[in-house]
């Protein structure tokens, strides 16, 4: 499959994520949208990695694996982030009995 299929898919996923973050008010949904953006980026990394290994794999043996290992890293970081993020959301719900992000506007002033 040509690489731009992956690029379009990734861009679409990313845009959905951005729009989700912008328009949704529920903290859970916003959080999920952030994950969506993250994974759009991961997808792109894997796709380009594949492309590169076809082009220069003969002379650069690590070209096929570098980006894919990097994706593992970002998935691990994402998992850690999810645990922290969910904990924050739980605490937020305990405090204000809501997960509406617009409710948290005390940064003002």
């Amino acid at each position, binding site marked *: 499959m040509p690489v731009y299929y992956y690029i379009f898919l990734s861009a679409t996923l990313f845009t959905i994520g951005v729009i989700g*973050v*912008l328009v949704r008010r529920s903290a859970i949904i916003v959080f999920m949208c952030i994950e969506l953006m993250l994974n759009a980026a991961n997808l792109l990394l894997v796709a380009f990695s594949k492309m590169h290994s076809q082009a220069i794999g003969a002379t650069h043996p690590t070209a096929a694996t570098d980006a894919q290992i990097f994706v593992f890293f970002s998935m691990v970081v994402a998992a850690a982030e999810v645990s922290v993020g969910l904990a924050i959301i739980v605490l937020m719900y305990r405090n204000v009995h809501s997960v509406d992000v*617009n409710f948290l*506007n005390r940064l003002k002033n």
Partner: protein
Amino acid sequence: MNNILHIAWLIPFLPLVGFLVNGLGRNQLSKSISGIIGSGTILASFLLSVYVFLSVKDGNTHVAHYFDFINTGALKIGFDFQVDQLSSLFLLIITGVGFLIHVYSTSYMHDETPNNFAKYFAYLNLFVFSMLLLVLGGNYVIMFIGWEGVGLCSYLLIGFWFKNDNYNSAAKKAFVMNRIGDLGFLLAVFWLITKLGTTDYHTVFQNVSQLTSFDITCITLLLFVGATGKSAQIPLYTWLPDAMAGPTPVSALIHAATMVTAGIYMIARSNILFTMAPTTQTVIAIIGLATAILAATIALKQNDIKKVLAYSTVSQLGYMFLGLGVGAYTGAVFHVMTHAFFKALLFLGAGSVIHALHGEQDMRKMGGLKKYMSITHITFLLGCIAIAGIPPFSGFFSKDEILAAAFSSNPVLWVIGVLGAVMTAFYMFRLYTMTFLGNFRGTDEQQHHLHESPGAITFPLIILAVLAVIGGLIGIPEVFMHGGHRLEAFLEPIFRESKKIQGTHHLSHSTEYFLMAASVVGASIAIIFAWKNYKDYRYSTEENTGIARVLENKWYVDEIYSSVIVQPVRALGGFFTNVVERGIIDGIVNGVGRAVNYGSRQIRLLQSGQVGTYVLLMVFGILILFVIQLFL
């Protein structure tokens, strides 16, 4: 021969030490100690000067290089002292007359508190130090340090009684007038550095032929502007009469030994430059003569004893500049010397009178002091005769030399000069007659306290009187005695080059006799006329009219300066402070503040606290960056 170099620096250094000791210890020292320190350092300098003078007389002249004052690679200015005939002569005048004035001051200033007394002597010593530095300096920059120093000290001493507002403004006037002149001097020095890359006298004078005549004319004119400020010539002379605000010995010091002679010294020192610039010489001669006449006419109608003497100084300085302008450099220096003697004598005598009368300076309220103050009277009379130019007193020889040189340059200059000399004789004897002859016109209280001044005052008077009488004998003209002009022979090395350029023109003996006779007869008639007119002077409150009134008001020069220069400058200053400063500059500064204030109040609204808004803005920002990156 190295001896001179070793002690030359001590001459200005000792007064500096005196200044520091008196200045720093003014709260601890008693009056007698600070008086001894003040006078003693000057006496020591005087003795050293005599030694240096004698050694120079044997032909020992030096430029002593002590250390580099400015060294920037291309420009190198050393801290040099030039010990030669001209400077050693001035050293003698400054320290000798200065010492007598110091001694006189110990008695004159005795009513001051110890603190002020020591401060006074500190200033006096600093004054002498600056003047010695000016005279000894081996280049124009060192001279300029002394030049500024005397300006500063004159300010400090004229305003010594600073609690009086008038005295303070007199001090400020002296300072400002001097600054105007100093600017000219400084520009001349810069010009020299640009063209020749050095300010050393001997290098400048050797390379003077490299300069175009335009350069020389401009440099000498600028130097002359400096001299008009320091030596009180038109148009900057008005500070000198106002400088009377200071204590009388200070006036004597400023008028006789230091300060005002600086301009003469500077031009005599740079005589080669000036000889190469005939235009400047003409300007100097005309300004000198005009000053001499203007000041003499003003002195005719002044009633303050010190004011008369002040205008007479301005007038005599005019003669010196006339001498410089017609190339009679020796005559000018000679007149500086004799003038130092008799003018110091006259001022100190006037101080003695003022002291006896407890501060009265109005001659209309004096009279008949001959009976009470015999020493002051005799010495003052000798001073008056000397300044009037009656032979064989000192003033005759020096003034005659200048007038003879003026005659050979242009007889018109001579006629006007003699007119001024006649006026000099008149106003000096008017002063003498009003003060010492006739009946006492003051209060009974004052008459009761009239007394001769103490020894510390009369001693300098006697010494100066002797000098004023015989001082002229070192410059007897050739007509009277072959080889009689010892001063000219002594100063010959300094003015040799100028003489070569100028050439010498000799007047015939009969002409010279006629010139002398004319000025002596004129002066004698003026003396008799003054005596006749004022011997029975009675105090009257009648106001002067016509020309006398104009003279009494000093030709209204101060008023003219005030309306032509001071008021417009004030108005300009008012414009700048009210319109430019308050309106424009304050407007800009406050406007910036107000704009920031207003702007931030508007931008603050962006800070809504809504996370969504922030994210939206962030996304917009990123999109903009993308667009810039990809398409621009």
